[in-house]
């Protein structure tokens, strides 16, 4: 446990000793606000809720989370520091978990810093804060899902740009898994069971429930399982390809 925390702490030190952290947070806050007020018509809707805010999260994460995750392993491979990390007495799963927790905590911080919008909606009306809290939680879990996919892809390459692009594509696939854009790729040849299974993987479907304030255990379990599966895959990749 101490080793996991040591890695998490080291990662966070690295985030905040480069402009990365500040650039990310500023852009995240600017974009969430812009989307909420301009595209989401926050005022015009005249409703005291934050659905205008949350509905854009999947699309923001699609590009911003891979920007965080792309460096997690690819940078270590590129700079050679992975040789140091993998020869310290750390189990690969501890390293995977430590890095994931750092990136996740960082995204959580960015989410927490959106609190002015919560203050605004409470000032303007009388929203259901339970629903808002649930939506925040769901958003964080969805970000974790994106992050786990991105971390896994980052571990397969030493090129951050490739890691970014592949992660965006993979996340896009998961995001729209329930929509015809993705399903049409499979429906012509795959059995219906598989098509249904793929459709049930959709981030958007799972998130839309949560963002409405309906915390269905199945949705949280879905994101948790997704995180576990991809972190496990990440660990296996590290076992298989420590060097080269």
């Amino acid at each position, binding site marked *: 446990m*101490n*080793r996991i*925390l*040591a*890695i998490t*702490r*080291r990662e966070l*030190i*690295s985030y905040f*000793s*480069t402009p990365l952290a500040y650039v990310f947070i500023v852009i995240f806050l600017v974009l969430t606000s812009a989307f909420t007020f301009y595209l989401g018509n926050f005022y015009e809707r005249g409703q005291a809720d934050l659905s205008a805010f949350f509905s854009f999260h999947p699309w923001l994460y699609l590009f911003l989370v891979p920007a965080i995750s792309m460096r997690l392993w690819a940078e270590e491979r590129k*700079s*050679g*520091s992975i*040789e*140091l990390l*993998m*020869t*310290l*007495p*750390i*189990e690969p799963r501890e390293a995977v978990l430590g890095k994931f927790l750092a990136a996740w905590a960082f995204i959580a911080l960015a989410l927490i810093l959106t609190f002015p919008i919560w203050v605004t909606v409470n000032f303007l009306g009388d929203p259901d804060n339970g629903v808002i809290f649930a939506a925040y939680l769901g958003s964080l879990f969805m970000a974790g899902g994106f992050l786990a996919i991105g971390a896994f892809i980052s571990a397969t390459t030493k090129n951050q740009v490739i890691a970014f692009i592949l992660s965006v594509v993979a996340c896009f696939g998961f995001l729209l898994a329930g929509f015809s854009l993705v399903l049409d790729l499979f429906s012509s040849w795959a059995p219906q069971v598989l098509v249904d299974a793929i459709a049930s993987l959709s981030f958007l479907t799972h998130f839309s429930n949560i963002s409405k304030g309906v915390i269905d255990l199945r949705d949280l379990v879905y994101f948790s399982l997704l995180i576990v599966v991809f972190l496990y895959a990440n660990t296996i990749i590290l076992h298989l390809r*420590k*060097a*080269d």
Partner: protein
Amino acid sequence: MIDCQSITKKYAHLVAVNDVSFKVSPGEVLGFLGPNGAGKTTTMRIIAGFVTPTAGRVLVSGFDVESQSMEAKQRIGYLPEGAPSYPEMTPRSFLEFVADVRGLTKGKKLSRLEEVFALLHLEPVLEQTIDTLSKGYKRRVGLAQAILHDPEVLILDEPTDGLDPNQKHEVRGLINQMSKNKIIVISTHLLEEVEAVCSRAIIIAEGQILVDDTPANLESRSRFHNAVSLKLVDPSRMEGVRTAIEALNEVTATEVDANNNRMTAFPAPNKMPLAAISELAIAQGWEFSELHLESGRLDEVFRTITTGENA
């Protein structure tokens, strides 16, 4: 104890390490020598647990590096080639991270950090980010990381690369100082380093061990071993002196370096020509500006062994 048992590492198009076996005991400083691409780094990576061998295994203090990797890694300090670290961190935060991962307790951590800062003279740069440091400081940060937990086994891949002569001297002093009860394996291109720190040398080429011997024995393989080099005060007498020395029983041949007029007299098998040459010089009244006994030249032995040519 490091015990490498017929380790082999194959890549798609080459065999980097081919059935290499050796043991290293506490107190030994083993120098890995070899041309670039000989398999030195791959061998060290296998010992450190970074590269999984295709066949064979490595035991460090009795622990298998692959199947008992945590126990083995706790006992190893490893400086990878090029001393990689995290460039955006400061030496202090980086070494604190290593101490935390290695599970040093709070008091131990502080005292060890102070010790390695002092040993490697890192104090002036502790708060600078590592990417702004000179190559010498980066290397010393890497060394600090390797020795921080006072490991039983030190694997150092080119520990003095990029250091200036004074820093090289200091690092060698440090290795000598630590060598008493540790196992140290270093790789190097610098033959003087082998003489300065190693009690044993392995020459490796194309993934195979060619020689495993002490530096002194290696030197004795040189044709310069026990040869005598001399320079005359009056170089014009060289021809006469050369003929007289070549006539000695103890000497097989002589060579004169035209650049600096230094003559080298090579010994006959199992002979020491120095005494005979001195006596002859006194009898003949030769005046030398330089006269010394060669112990052997490692670079020449190295070339002969790794290229198969006779230097």
